[in-house]
């Protein structure tokens, strides 16, 4: 098991293994997205209070969950790179940042579009929305550090420190609706009780959540592979690949 993980840290093996996984990941992602979209837009009934507008939930909640998940992956990868100097970990952290920022942006925008008809406003400075906005700024900070610092290792180190310090925002975002009085509703799924949402809505929601997760893994691998090729361009295996093209 340690040998497998050790091998996975090798850019060359990572490139090969990820290349084999990608077609599968792509197809499963597309299928899950299609199933989730059908279940959410067509299959699920309208909400007794919100009518059809609640259907934004099927992209809003998965985006929000991903904004948190990707941040934790980015911070963990940053920590691994910081502690053990594994280049691939730095690559994963750097590649995750724009994806996490995208999900955070989507969570904010789709939430805003849901808020206008339901709450009567596009924005409110409550704890949930504000802390999610802070998350977006943290992502921008990480991306900015990578863009501004020429030496990749130094950039990764600085970005990892920022990501780790900012990680305190994650539980704040999650518990914001319980710790403060917020306009944003409380948890319906990610809580210790059984979920208080009907199955016909829960199933497409979880399907979309899984689809988003696999989408992230797929795109992350695509980005990481390009980054690895670029970084290792002087090595023999990349030269061989390049000559083969």
């Amino acid at each position, binding site marked *: 098991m340690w040998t497998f993980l050790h091998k996975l840290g090798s850019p060359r093996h990572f490139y090969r293994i990820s290349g084999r996984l990608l077609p599968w990941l792509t197809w499963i992602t597309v299928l899950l997205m299609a199933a989730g979209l059908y279940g959410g837009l067509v299959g699920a009934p309208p909400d007794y209070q919100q009518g*059809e507008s609640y259907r*934004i939930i099927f992209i809003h909640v998965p985006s929000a969950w991903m904004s948190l998940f990707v941040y934790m992956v980015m911070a963990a990868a940053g920590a691994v790179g910081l502690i053990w100097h594994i280049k691939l970990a730095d690559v994963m952290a750097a590649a995750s940042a724009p994806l996490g920022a995208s999900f955070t942006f989507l969570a904010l925008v789709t939430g805003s*579009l849901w808020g206008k008809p339901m709450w009567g406003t596009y924005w409110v400075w409550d704890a949930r929305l504000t802390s999610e906005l802070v998350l977006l700024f943290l992502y921008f900070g990480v991306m900015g550090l990578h863009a501004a610092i020429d030496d990749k290792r130094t950039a990764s180190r600085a970005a990892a420190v920022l990501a780790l310090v900012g990680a305190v925002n994650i539980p704040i975002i999650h518990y914001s609706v319980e710790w403060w009085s917020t306009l944003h509703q409380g948890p319906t799924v990610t809580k210790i009780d059984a979920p208080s949402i009907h199955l016909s809505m829960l199933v497409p929601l979880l399907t979309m959540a899984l689809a988003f997760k696999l989408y992230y893994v797929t795109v992350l691998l695509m980005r990481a592979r390009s980054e690895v090729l670029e970084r290792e361009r002087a090595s023999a295996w990349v030269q061989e690949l390049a000559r083969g093209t």
Partner: protein
Amino acid sequence: MDAVREFLHMGGYGFYVWSAYGVTFVVLVANVIVPVLRARELRTRLARQARMERRT
């Protein structure tokens, strides 16, 4: 046909629902296109460099 119109109308919330899905679609597609383009550009650049090195 009525079913399609109702689907697009989304009970009066069509603008909000479809704007949300539209933004999501654009962002998700963009995030796929970016690495694909980068990989293509990288491959041609590496191939060109490999060819030039063979000549030296």
